[in-house]
């Protein structure tokens, strides 16, 4: 990243990219019906946030942002594991992954 910053790419570009990724995630989350796509949208949002974290960490020479990214990635990995397990369980039970069809808590 350092070399990118030094190569005169302005800060705002990174942020705009981050925002664009985030909005893509949000929109995907809201409009997609497939549970796996929704799940991937969440990952996209998380990584958009990660991008702005590292951007600011480099800008302000603060290591905290970098550390936070590792936390986020760790949580995302755990979440992916649990979430995918749940998705498989749901598919086995309902034989569908359409979000609108799985709005009941009980089977």
């Amino acid at each position, binding site marked *: 990243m350092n070399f990118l910053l030094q190569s005169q790419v302005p800060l705002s570009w990174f942020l705009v990219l981050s925002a664009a990724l985030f909005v893509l995630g*949000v929109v995907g*989350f*809201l*409009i997609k019906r497939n549970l796996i796509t929704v799940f991937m949208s969440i990952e996209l949002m998380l990584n958009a946030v990660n991008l702005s974290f590292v951007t600011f960490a480099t800008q302000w020479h603060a290591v905290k942002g970098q550390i936070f990214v590792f936390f986020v990635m760790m949580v995302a990995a755990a979440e992916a594991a649990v979430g995918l397990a749940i998705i498989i369980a749901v598919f086995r039970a309902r034989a569908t992954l359409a979000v*609108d069809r*799985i*709005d009941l808590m009980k089977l």
Partner: protein
Amino acid sequence: MISSWLLIIPLLPLAGFLINGLLGGRLPKSVVTMVALLAPLASFAVVAQAARAVFLAGEALPIVATCPFPWINVPGLHVDFSFVLDQLSLVMLLVVTGVGFLIHVYSVGYMAHEEGYARYFSYLNLFLFFMTVLVLAGNALLMFVGWEGVGLASYLLIGFYFTKDSAANAGKKAFIVNRIGDFGFLIAMFLLLANFGTLSFAEIATKIAASPAISGCVITSIALCLLLGATGKSAQLPLYIWLPDAMEGPTPVSALIHAATMVTAGVYMMARTHVLFDHSPTALTVVAIVGAATALFAATMGLAQTDIKRVLAYSTISQLGYMFLACGVAAYSAGVFHLMTHAFFKALLFLAAGSVIHGLGGEQDLRKMGGLWKKMPITFAVTTIAVFAIAGFPPFAGFFSKDAILYAAFLQQPFGIVLWAVGALTALITSIYMFRLWYMTFLGKPRTADQHAHESPWSMLGPLVLLALLSLCGGWMGIEKFGEFLAPATGALHLESHLPNLEIILTGVAVALAALGLLVAHIFYSAKPEAPAKLATTLGPVYKLVANKYYVDEIYAALIVKPLLALSRFVLEWVVDVAILGGLAWLLGGLANFAGAILQKVQSGNLRSYAGWLAGGAAVMLVFVLVPWDFVGLLCKGFLMIVLKGAGH
């Protein structure tokens, strides 16, 4: 020396109350009796010691004892716990603790087989505590504490047999009627505070003496409010109705509280605040009229009663009317004199009636008594003394005090002769109904076949004999000496007349009337026993009116009690319960329902709608944070100015 002892006088009965009230149920009966008797006896001993110091050692009165710490101390109001022993409170204390002790002794025999023995004596001691506080109080507020306290004790003792509906209701009636009087007392205290800035009796007297120009209207209203208080406590017109019902309590209670001491508190209070009454001729006139009217009214009601205790109750009201009459003609010492002798002979009458009731196993109906003199000779003898005393025969105690009141009433200007005539007529009626009671109870033949009447035990007869002695000799000191003694506390008594022999003539008339009463009672209830029934049928409606106590209770019920009950039922049931409480509950419930109905739409169960709300919320917050509101404000302002300017042009 004595001043520190003053505090002991009320505290001893208080200790007795606490011991018997808290532990009485667990203590053996003998200990309860001992505690109950020792407390008033010790109080009486202290009072007697004080009296000895005053009479023999020439101790100067008044003696004031003030607690070292103030009771209430705020700007504009300073009240101490101050006890004052002067001539008036000394006489009253001797009566209260002396007669009180005798009645305690009597109660030991009378209540021996009753349930709630310890409770009874703890209440009785509580009464003595509050009564001594009332008598000793050096300011109106402390007197009010005692005043309310004796009302409480009276309520508790009237309702002593609280499982009986009539007793519980009588207690409530006494308490509620007394509240009306207490309201007057309270207003009087507020007026005193507003106009004199103090509640101490001594300071009020000095302030009035220092400024003779003080507004008569203020003093009259204070005095009339005090009179309202006194009519409640002392069972005068129009608030007398609670006293006959108060006879539901045990008979010794009727003797102590509802004859000898508590009901005289109104008279005592007027004597204590006589400075106010002296400065208001209007108030004095009202007092005299109330007293005379009550005396006559209650006496006529006593004529047709058949319950022995109710006859005595109406007689008490009537005699209290005499005391009010005395206060109303500014002869306070005569009133207090009658208070004292009345305490002796009326306590004796009640206790003797209790002895009769006890001997007959609870029978109170005069029509079922008769011929008891053989079976209860001592009770008969002491009752005879008491009846002659209340009827006003010399040399019994009642003669001297009643004579003094009638004489003082006659001398009042301008309509003293009317007051005297009412008083004399009352004396005649008193004599008739008392001898009626005497004949019906003790003489003639037994009116019920089955009579196991027996004389009472000596614990009851002892106090009777002592009280009989007092009823005989209690008036021998004479009103002149008594008035002279009381003069520093209640003002001098002026009983001079320009007519020679007036006093002797009036006395002769009074005695003749008493004798006439005896004669009438003898004809009606001994010589011609069929005469009363005949007279009753002849008089018809009048007799019915009197026998039903002029329907006063019914009139009060229709005019005051029922509308008040209906109003409070309406206010409490419909306004408070249904409208306010019910409406509030309905409103809160409705609000919760309404909010739920709206908010439940959010909980659609659709995952994407949740996500939409989330995103929308985040967007709103983002807008809120990012928009430069100051700048937007400025823009709006500028836009508005331009628009307004454009409009102006």
